[in-house]
């Protein structure tokens, strides 16, 4: 194992970590507001394909990113309409969204398979910092979306903990009737959280086709949306912990493709299971703690709200 390949591993860890973090932050927003959205995988796929298409057609990576975020936000709003607006079962709607999103992405992208990218988000060079040994390549030569993920993490964390909007959003996820009687619109809060979550999943998908693997192929998301869903539980619904989890899970993704080149005789399939095994362990810990204190999961997660229902 050379120094270069080790640095390469860490570069990929941060990069995959950011990819997962964006999607997980989106899911965290929705879940904090009380809406479970299992459609992350589908929203990522739609984000990835629309970013690629917009890149080819518009030749501008930033416009492509915006298109991806918008598309996924619209797709997420379908989930919002059914679950928040009509009170439909969230698990069913979310799973449908994943299947719908994956199908839609395959359909939209069928003429773009194998095409060269029209636009790419190239790594940012930070004057002076990028040339530092180790930290330079790992932290200061990443694609702009990595810094966007970090910025979003800080923003989401601040909004949730220290603003009126965040308080109301968390309240909507804990107890819709309390939020309603406090004069906040549960419908509005939940719909916007779901849409914002979709936009972040879209950005995550765009990162794939604009930077990590700048091309389109069906099945490109490869289950990473599901890892993002698990990540929210792993991070106990806290943006900071989810960030740490993203790096750990990102590390497993980065390691998976490099195991052989490192000459380690370890099945990459077991490594793929690691995020889910870790999540189960965390669930166990949460469940044991729940005997003494309330669970960190939003209490109203998954529950529809209708005002005049007793």
């Amino acid at each position, binding site marked *: 194992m050379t120094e270069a390949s080790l640095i390469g591993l860490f570069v990929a860890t941060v990069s995959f970590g950011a990819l997962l973090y964006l999607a997980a932050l989106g899911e965290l927003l929705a879940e904090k507001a009380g809406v479970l959205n299992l459609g992350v995988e589908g929203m990522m796929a739609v984000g990835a394909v629309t970013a690629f298409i917009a890149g080819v057609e518009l030749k501008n990576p930033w416009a492509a990113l915006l298109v991806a975020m918008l598309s996924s936000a619209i797709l997420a709003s379908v989930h919002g309409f059914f679950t928040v607006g009509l009170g439909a079962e969230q698990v069913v709607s979310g799973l449908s969204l994943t299947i719908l999103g994956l199908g839609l992405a395959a359909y939209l992208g069928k003429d773009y398979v194998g095409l060269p990218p029209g636009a790419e988000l190239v790594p940012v060079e930070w004057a002076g910092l990028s040339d530092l040994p180790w930290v330079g390549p790992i932290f200061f030569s990443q694609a702009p979306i990595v810094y966007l993920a970090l910025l979003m993490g800080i923003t989401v964390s601040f909004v949730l903990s220290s*603003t009126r909007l965040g308080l109301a959003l968390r*309240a909507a996820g804990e*107890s819709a*009737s*309390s*939020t309603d009687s406090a*004069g906040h619109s549960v419908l509005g809060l939940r719909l916007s959280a779901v849409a914002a979550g979709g936009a972040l999943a879209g950005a995550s998908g765009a990162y794939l086709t604009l930077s990590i693997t700048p091309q389109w192929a069906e099945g490109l998301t490869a289950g990473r949306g599901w890892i993002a869903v698990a990540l929210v539980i792993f991070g106990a619904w806290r943006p900071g912990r989810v960030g740490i989890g993203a790096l750990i899970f990102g590390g497993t993704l980065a390691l998976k493709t490099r195991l052989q080149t490192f000459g380690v005789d370890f099945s990459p399939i077991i490594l793929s299971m690691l995020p889910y095994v870790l999540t189960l362990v965390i669930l166990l810990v949460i469940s044991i703690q729940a005997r003494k204190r309330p669970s960190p999961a939003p209490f109203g997660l998954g529950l529809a709200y209708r005002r005049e229902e007793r």
Partner: protein
Amino acid sequence: MNQAPSSTNDSTLAVELSDVWKSFPGVTANAGVNLSVRTGTIHALLGENGAGKSTLMNILAGVYRPDRGELKIHGQSHHFRNPADALSAGIGMVHQEFRLIPSFSVAENVVLGSAATVLRTRQVELQVSELAERFGLKVDPSQPLWQLSMGERQKVEILKILWRNAQVLILDEPTTVLTPSEVGELGDILTKMANDGRSIIFISHKLHEVSGICDEATVLRQGKTVASALPIESTGQRELAQLMVGTSASSTDRPSPSTPGAPLLELDGLSALGDRGLEAFSNLTFQVNSGEIVGIAGVAGNGQRELADVIAGLRPSTTGSLLMDGADITTASPQFRFKSGLAYIPEDRLGVGLAPRLSITDNAILRVYRQQRRGPFILAEKALSYCKDIVHRFGVRSADLEGPIAALSGGNLQRLLVGRELDGEPSVVVASQPTRGLDVQGVKAIQELLIQQRDSGVAVIMISEDLDELLTITDRLLVMESGVIRGEFDPRTASRDEVGMAMLSDGQAITDT
């Protein structure tokens, strides 16, 4: 109608509701209700369960929209579309079920409705505790809500409304969750707020509390106003009671003395843990005989709920043994206990006792569905006729037996639950707060059913916080405090004060002053 409203003009009226109508499927909850509340007074809204009090207040608080009717706040007409509208017009409501968020701190709960765009935790907590002190509400703003007692949570609810600077406060049966000393404290707080120029609507059906706290009263019966703006001081409790029930509600007479037989339920050194893993009660030894009602008195939270759970088999005991009719059932399943003749009327009717989203019929057969089946299928016809039988025999008033049970009022829910439990001809009945929150007639009906059971040789345990009720209908009275029996009384000779002293023997020194 009994008395003309005192001379008022619009400017002194905080709330004026006229000719309010509201229907739910199958029920007309409000049929032309009128209500006037003068500014700076504590106004009692009286009525039996199902009289339409909560519906009317939910309309005033913007939760429900009326089908018809006019609503004026401080002389101005309003049409609330949601609770936010009501709040901005200065109306705040403390619901019977608190609208609080357990994982939030006290301060977060308080400011939820109106917080600054950016929150500075320290500063917010300071502001909340300043507000709390102004009205004598003692709470720690940084404490997470789930650690608070029910009485403290109520203070947080009141603080929430004060934080929004509401001028009209609605309290929906606020005393049901309070201990007697907390009721007194609440009265002081409300008086302070009224002196501050705020108007308070106090929903209740406990007349002695109303006369201690409120200035005026409006009485509802079957969705209509039967008396408005009665001055409390000059109106007797008897007159109020008559207005509420329509007929003279005579106090329950003592039933004929019992003739106890052999012990049917025996507790020997029984102990169990509470929800938080602390000991709920320890080393309880007593027995309940055939043909007697044994009352368990005590302030809520002294182990009574856990005791009922353990007897019903819903909570494991840690030490000791439990015998029913001589057979050891310490570790038996709830199903086995039911089959052996144990009926359980739980404190939490809609959670433990009944399934809110199932129909009345489904709830009625919940215990005995094995008798209404052929193979794996439930026989709908048979189930329905069984349900009709219970509904008829126990006087459940209901429009739609296939409709969800949550549409029933509290009294009818309890009749159905008690009917279902007593139908199996039990030998032991455990009734936990069986009459709490019921109207006068409902209380009477349930008490009579329990006495009937006793007279037919059933052993009855009745857990209640209503001391007067226990002193009237039980044959023996045990007082539970901090998980142990503090005394046994003969309700025929015991004085209220004696029993009250035993109830408060130790806990008092810790909670007060």
